[in-house]
């Protein structure tokens, strides 16, 4: 397969995944906003949602005052923000169009219809009453796209690069989501199980589409170690870091190593995967959840960069997976309660 094709498919997939993640984050913000006591706690959710989306820099000044409207505009509609949902769908569609010969008409139709539907959407489409509709439409579009890939694309390099893009983006998103909310997860002796924390954990799980999964897996009350377990080390949860890295390694194995540089990529991926295989929630929390997640964000970023170089991708700016941004997440205190 052409290197340019691999690159286009990989980014097409990353952008759709990013749009989906943004929609989940907006949904989490909306839910947390409505929680009892949220207002008293200073309503800091929207700034942290923006940071979790990796959009602190593009948002610019006034992050602390970000409210639902501002956050929604920036994460969903702002065309200046290359990671907004609209920008992502547009970029995914442009990549698909450039790679039209490499995807099936079903995959093309899925992404092309999505763009046709979203290109005209504005803030007017996310008023109070239709906010959830909007979120659900984004998710449904992503599912249709994945479904088309799953049912119609040959299991060959094209699919493997698409899967790589999805899981690298997802690993990054899950790590960020946890990192931004890690303060909620940290055990506070006097507050364990207190109302607001419990509800916030629930929202984190929802944002990762994992609340039901949590109940199935643990059949117990939500607690910090269990949340970390489900989203980091659990091998069955489709949005856990472990799951993403297993998939990254499988797909890299399928693609195969043809050069020395490609060997380095495989090694980085395996190293991260092995770390996730042996880790457990308690040791991660003991090590320092934030530090551990920062390491993972940086490592994922390094993986993405070396992957692009070694398979001959042309340079393409990815605004949000930078080390600087990972450092951003560590400044969470400014907007923590």
């Amino acid at each position, binding site marked *: 397969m*052409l290197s*340019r094709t691999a690159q286009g498919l990989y980014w097409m997939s990353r952008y759709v995944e990013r749009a989906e993640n943004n929609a989940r984050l907006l949904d989490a913000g909306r839910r947390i906003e409505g929680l009892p006591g949220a207002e008293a706690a200073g309503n800091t959710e929207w700034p942290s949602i923006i940071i979790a989306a990796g959009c602190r820099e593009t948002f610019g000044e006034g992050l602390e005052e970000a409210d639902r409207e501002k956050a929604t505009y920036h994460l969903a509609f702002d065309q200046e923000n290359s990671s907004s949902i609209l920008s992502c769908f547009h970029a995914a569609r442009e990549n698909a169009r450039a790679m*039209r010969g490499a995807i099936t008409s079903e995959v093309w139709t899925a992404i092309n219809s999505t763009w046709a539907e979203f290109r005209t959407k504005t803030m007017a489409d996310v008023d109070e009453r239709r906010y959830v509709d909007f979120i659900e439409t984004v998710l449904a579009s992503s599912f249709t796209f994945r479904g088309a890939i799953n049912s119609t694309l040959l299991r060959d390099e094209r699919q493997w690069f698409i899967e790589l893009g999805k899981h690298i983006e997802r690993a990054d998103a899950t790590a960020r989501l946890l990192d931004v909310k890690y303060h909620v997860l940290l055990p506070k002796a006097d507050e364990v199980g207190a109302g607001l924390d419990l509800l916030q954990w629930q929202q984190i799980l929802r944002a990762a589409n994992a609340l039901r999964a949590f109940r199935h897996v643990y059949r117990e009350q939500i607690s910090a170690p269990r949340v970390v377990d489900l989203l980091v080390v659990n091998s069955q949860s489709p949005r856990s870091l472990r799951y993403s890295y297993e998939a990254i390694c499988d797909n890299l194995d399928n693609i195969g190593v043809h050069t020395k540089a490609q060997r380095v990529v495989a090694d980085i991926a395996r190293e991260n995967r092995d770390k996730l295989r042996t880790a457990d929630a308690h040791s991660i929390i003991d090590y320092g959840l934030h530090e551990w997640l920062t390491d993972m964000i940086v490592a994922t970023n390094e993986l993405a960069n070396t992957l692009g170089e070694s398979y001959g991708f042309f340079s393409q700016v990815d605004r949000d997976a930078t080390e600087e941004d990972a450092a951003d997440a560590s400044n969470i205190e400014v907007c923590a309660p």
Partner: protein
Amino acid sequence: MVAYYDEMKDRAGIKPAYADVAEWAKATTAEDLRLRQNEAEGLFRRNGITFAVYGEGGDPERLIPFDLMPRVFSSSEWDVIERGSIQRARALNAFLTDVYGKREFIKAGKIPARLVEGNPAYEPIMQGIQPVGDIFSHIIGVDLVRTGPDEFNVLEDNCRTPSGISYVLQNREVMQRIMPSMFRSGQVRPVDHYGDMLAAAMQSVAPDDCDGRPTLAILTPGHYNSAYFEHSFLADIMGIELVEGQDLFVENDMLFMRTIRGPERIHVLYRRIDDAFLDPEAFNPDSMLGVPGLMRAYAAGGVTIVNAPGAGVADDKATYVYVPEMIRFFLGEEPILPNVETWQCADESECKYVLDNLSELVVKEVHGSGGYGMLIGPKSTKAEIEKFEGLIKANPGNYIAQPTLALSTVPSLSEEGLAPRHVDLRPFVISGKGKTELIPGGLTRVALREGSLVVNSSQGGGVKDTWVLRGDRL
């Protein structure tokens, strides 16, 4: 008032080939027809079958209008078109082989040498190059018009990179969805083996040093090109790579593409970019679209280029008048599909005739295309005619003239329901080593504006599905 030939009905009534279609149209309400028309357009939009018109602004991804009333040919009608188009393609390839080889046609005085060598499409670099199988133009679009029951004329040949085949296949796809009952009898001959036919032809002309299965690829200028949809569509139906100049390089007189596994050799390249942009070393040095060294590799026999550079010398409007003679000279046959009578303004007496009869004639630029730069005498104002008079006198060699043809009509959906609209036809002839063939069908273009004779999509033209029947009726 000229009487136009209506392809659906003649004096005896509805023709058998159209009987079922006419009945269907009659039984379908105007409202329903429009609904189906909208459904068809939605399908095109969803599939991304769009084209761009350069320099006009507006939506960069425009839909080519699709008319749901099909154009139908009985098998006996098609037989003439098929044999005639194949004959034409064989003669054109023989002519190209001769132009860049022995030049017997010129030596025999059949065509003036200056028309060949002075032609902008003539590529001196091709002199002495012998493409595999003596095929220069592997895909030829033959533009046909019809003026009566048995009167088919060739209006133009397209030997460079004729486009439109994707519409042929997609039109059929859409028709099978919105009019399924018409296909149940199995009388409409399928067209979807085009990809296999083209791939087989391309494989047959792979370089001699290729052992095993040749690797094929399509070279596109990129996804901002107006015909990009077609390029990717073709790559898709043949299961081959769609490459851009940046993906390719030449080494040891062989062509390679950059893949995730490293360089991979390409044996046959179907290029959809113009000669001038193919290779900055050989042609336009500023081209970013092509591949440096490609012509070197081609001349050395390391890669086959489809269609060959310089093939345009055969499809020029000035060369056009000599095609019937090519058929006689190279094939020893009489032309099955005649040309349209053509006056060349380069010839003094013919030019005089043209100038005296401008209001009756169609005048075209010799190297123009796309329906631009032409005069349709009967439909022009006095001022327009005078303007052309000046243009012709200033540069007679740049113009030819033809009678205004009474193009046949096929019923089409208009604001007022079904109404006759003028059509033409472009079948696509594929030539491989020792084999020239075409799919039963082609691109029917329709002038959707009432009374218009210009079918080009850039001038308000649309497309129709073209049905070739197994027998004489559905």
